[in-house]
């Protein structure tokens, strides 16, 4: 972040600052003239959109914390007070609760973009892995945030998810007691979840900084998946992509506002408007929608893995489910090292494209399974989808590494763009 060959600025005040801390030069270099492939489609909006949602969550979260009280006696009432009595409290809370959903929507599309266009491949492996780390931190933050209103789903969701750690052999129960700070989910648990829910977004900001830094070292991937070869392939970030991103952000925020103002509880669960009661379990515990595919994987393991005829259980069903659920994220993390195919973009990988579209459909089906009671045909369906989820990473991708035919790539971004334009004109 040194100034390098800094050009003098005309404004004397800006020049005075810039010669001591080259903040204007940095902005100009990274967000002004920053050469960006000129063939982005709208999938490339979602990084910027995710950044806007993160900022929105932090801002609304900080002001909500001014009225929220993390104590089991009053937490539920303090949230209702925000909804009814605090000036604009209803708006701030609905922005925050729906904001979480829309943050996940943006990030899921962003992840899909990376998978479809091979953005995780060399030299962007670390950039991708930092992104998966952000996703993990987001999940932890969202889970703890959902506990804070101290409704029935908050309490029982926290109970079920913290109980997952009891599946760890030997130390599991001690870890659960450590997480709870007691012998059940109770006041100490709520208190620490609030403290960590406030901390984690700032960790996310830190990792986002590294993520963007790594992006500015390698430069962006693009829909063709070939590197820009010179000036003719790129555009300066400003005004071309500041404008395109702004447009995407506005469209996204319009849809978001539609939910906030007209269907603020559509993605929530009515049980969470009942105060937490440790003596009564809701008949059907479901996490928020963005966790459903992972919840389905967790519940798909209904059988112990044992050594035949000895009755020795190697891996009880509960542990198996927990391992696979965390394994499903680990698969994303190591994706750059599983996929060795030299071509990035699925546009030139007909087989990978089919496998990936099936993967997305599969993830949606898993989500549906996660929202249904774990009985009847939903169980084998979830198991089948879990098999495909993992097979995609450990069987299909390594198979395609060697077998998938290479489709000829365009010579350059510029050539591909011009060809498309002449075709459209004729």
């Amino acid at each position, binding site marked *: 972040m040194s100034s390098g060959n800094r050009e003098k600025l005309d404004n004397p005040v800006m020049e005075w600052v810039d010669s001591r801390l080259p903040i204007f030069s940095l902005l100009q270099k990274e967000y002004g003239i920053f050469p960006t492939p000129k063939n982005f489609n709208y999938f490339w909006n979602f990084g910027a959109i995710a950044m806007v949602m993160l900022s929105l969550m932090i801002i609304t979260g900080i002001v909500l914390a001014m009225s929220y009280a993390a104590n089991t006696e009053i937490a539920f009432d303090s949230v209702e007070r925000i909804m009814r009595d605090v000036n604009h409290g209803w708006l701030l809370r609905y922005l925050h609760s729906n904001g979480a959903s829309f943050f996940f929507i943006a990030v899921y599309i962003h992840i899909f973009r990376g998978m479809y266009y091979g953005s995780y491949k060399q030299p962007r492996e670390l950039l991708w892995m930092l992104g998966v780390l952000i996703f993990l931190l987001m999940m932890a933050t969202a889970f703890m945030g959902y506990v804070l209103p101290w409704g029935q789903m908050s309490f029982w969701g926290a*109970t*079920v998810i913290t109980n997952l750690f009891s599946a760890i052999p030997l130390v599991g129960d001690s870890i659960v007691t450590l997480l709870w*700070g007691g012998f059940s989910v109770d006041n100490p648990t709520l208190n620490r979840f609030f403290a960590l829910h406030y901390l984690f977004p700032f960790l996310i900001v830190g990792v986002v900084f590294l993520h963007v830094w790594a992006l500015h070292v390698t430069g962006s991937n693009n829909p063709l998946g070939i590197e820009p070869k010179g000036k003719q392939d790129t555009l300066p970030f400003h005004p071309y992509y500041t404008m395109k991103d702004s447009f995407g952000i506005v469209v996204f925020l319009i849809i978001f506002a539609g939910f906030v103002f007209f269907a603020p509880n559509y993605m929530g669960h009515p049980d969470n408007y009942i105060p937490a009661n440790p003596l*009564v379990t809701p008949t059907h*515990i479901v996490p928020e929608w963005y966790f459903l595919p992972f919840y389905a994987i967790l519940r798909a393991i209904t059988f112990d893995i044992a050594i035949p005829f000895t009755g020795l259980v190697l891996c009880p*069903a*509960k542990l198996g489910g927990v391992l696979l659920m965390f394994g499903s994220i680990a698969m994303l993390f190591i994706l750059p090292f599983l996929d060795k195919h030299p071509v990035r973009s699925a546009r030139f990988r007909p087989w990978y494209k089919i496998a990936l579209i099936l993967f997305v459909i599969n993830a949606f089906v898993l989500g549906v399974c996660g929202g249904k*009671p774990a009985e009847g045909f939903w169980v084998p369906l979830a198991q089948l989808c879990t098999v495909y989820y993992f097979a995609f990473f450990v069987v299909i991708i390594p198979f395609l590494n060697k077998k998938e035919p290479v489709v000829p790539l365009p010579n350059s971004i510029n050539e591909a763009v011009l060809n498309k334009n002449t075709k459209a004109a004729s």
Partner: protein
Amino acid sequence: MSADQTKKPSSTEGNHGEGETRRDFLYLTAAAFGAVGAGSFAWPLIDQMNPAADTLALSSTEVDLSPIEEGQAITVMWRGKPVFIRHRTAKEIEEAKAVDLGELRDPQTDEERVQEGHEKWLVMVGICTHLGCVPLGQKNADVKGEYDGWFCPCHGSHYDSSGRIRKGPAPTNMAIPDYTFINDTMIKIG
């Protein structure tokens, strides 16, 4: 830094082998002390999350059993968890004792789950061992499952009149807390 300062110490300074110097030893001891120091500072930060003294102090509860009629059950709170106390009928005790251990997922006799001389009292943590829900069966009007005990509505586990898992996804019987009879009608849980 001058050139001679960056030179490796000569072998006369006590070389024990290829490239090993006294300075390496200093690095190692410094790093080891640093690690111990960091660890001993980290422990209070982690251990503060464990149950505090007042939480531990609340960890026992006394319950008067005299108002519970035969066939009735009550739920009390202990360590923030529901504890089921059922005054079992002769028929329920009979059913619990008659079970063949071979057909149980978590084999335990009824005698192991109650206290001698107090067979009519079943005291257990009312939490399904699957994912922590509270099973139904405490009220007379509740569904009691196929084995005259408890039924968990979350994922369909059936428990018998001794609180043992009989059918459904739960891995083990409902837990028996430590408790003692202070006299015939008073128990202390925890």
